[in-house]
């Protein structure tokens, strides 16, 4: 097998361990401490924000405009509407600005 295949398989094993590991480790505890619970509840917003913020920070006018408009639309309506409108603003901004 090539080095590439080994890298892929090592990455795959580590990724699977991350997906099963949290459950296997945490299920050993009878009761979850409220602060652990609070930090677990913070996970989705915290993690997903890290996938947005640096991209926004390095984005130009079109990218910022797309996120702002998508954010405003998303506050009032559903996921698909905000995604389509955000993408439309992005494409318009990149081609017109």
């Amino acid at each position, binding site marked *: 097998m090539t080095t*590439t*295949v*080994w*890298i*892929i398989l*090592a*990455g*795959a094993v*580590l*990724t*699977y361990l*991350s*997906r*099963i*590991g*949290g*459950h296997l*480790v*945490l*299920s050993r505890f009878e009761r*979850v401490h*409220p*602060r*652990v*619970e*609070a*930090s*677990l*509840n*913070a*996970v*989705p*917003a*915290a*993690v*997903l*924000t*890290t*996938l*947005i*913020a*640096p*991209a926004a*920070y390095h984005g130009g006018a*079109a*990218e910022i405009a797309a*996120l702002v408009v*998508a*954010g405003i639309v*998303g*506050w009032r309506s*559903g*996921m698909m509407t*905000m*995604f389509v409108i*955000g*993408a439309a603003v*992005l*494409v318009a901004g*990149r081609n017109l600005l």
Partner: protein
Amino acid sequence: MPTYEGGMSFAQEFARGMRKSPPVVLSSAPFGLLFGALAVDNGFSVGEAVLMSATVYAGASQMVGLDLFGQHVAPWLIALSIFAVNFRHVLYSAAVGRRVPHWAPAQRAFGFFFLVDPQYAEAERKAENGERVTFAWFMGMATPIYVCWVTEAWIGASFGSLIPNTYALGLDFLLPIYFLGLVLSFRTRPLWLPIVVTSAVASIAAYEAIGSPWHVTVGAAAGMALAAFMPVTGNGDGEDVA
């Protein structure tokens, strides 16, 4: 037909799960195709690109892996970087694990392989709405997303050079918009705004100081630490996030 849970058959639950997949399939399709195209561009064969999408099955980390591979970084460091980007799944699996005590061990071992960001978010949202997260529903959502993701790697790798101006089409920036939608869906949770602001600032600082992929781990840890050290205000269960 035997009933599965709550009077629903396995097929009905599976079909209900499948209905959650189209937005994810549509929004991830550009990245699945882009991954395939970039993989070949960085020296992967078509088979290796498909193998990576099929076994790692985590978009952002696959892109990071490709990027480092193209820079001829040491193999162990590439694998470690993939793990760093995907470390958040430890937290997803811990959270979803609490929602599925009724799954058999084999179902968990199999199902948790498919625990990507939107899969986690939808499972968590379903549980918060007081609904049971069944294995059939979970796999119903996961199957189309997985099959399309792997197929896209093959298409992207095979025809990658034919994609026209991807910048003008905005392909590279669709994922942040999609992630923003997911973040907004959690806005009724306790401390949502302070957590988002903290994670945003920490991830940008880490991105500038240490670089990708550590901004994910550092930013998430900062938001979680804030939540852990603030006065406990409730667990956020039972709130409508639609």
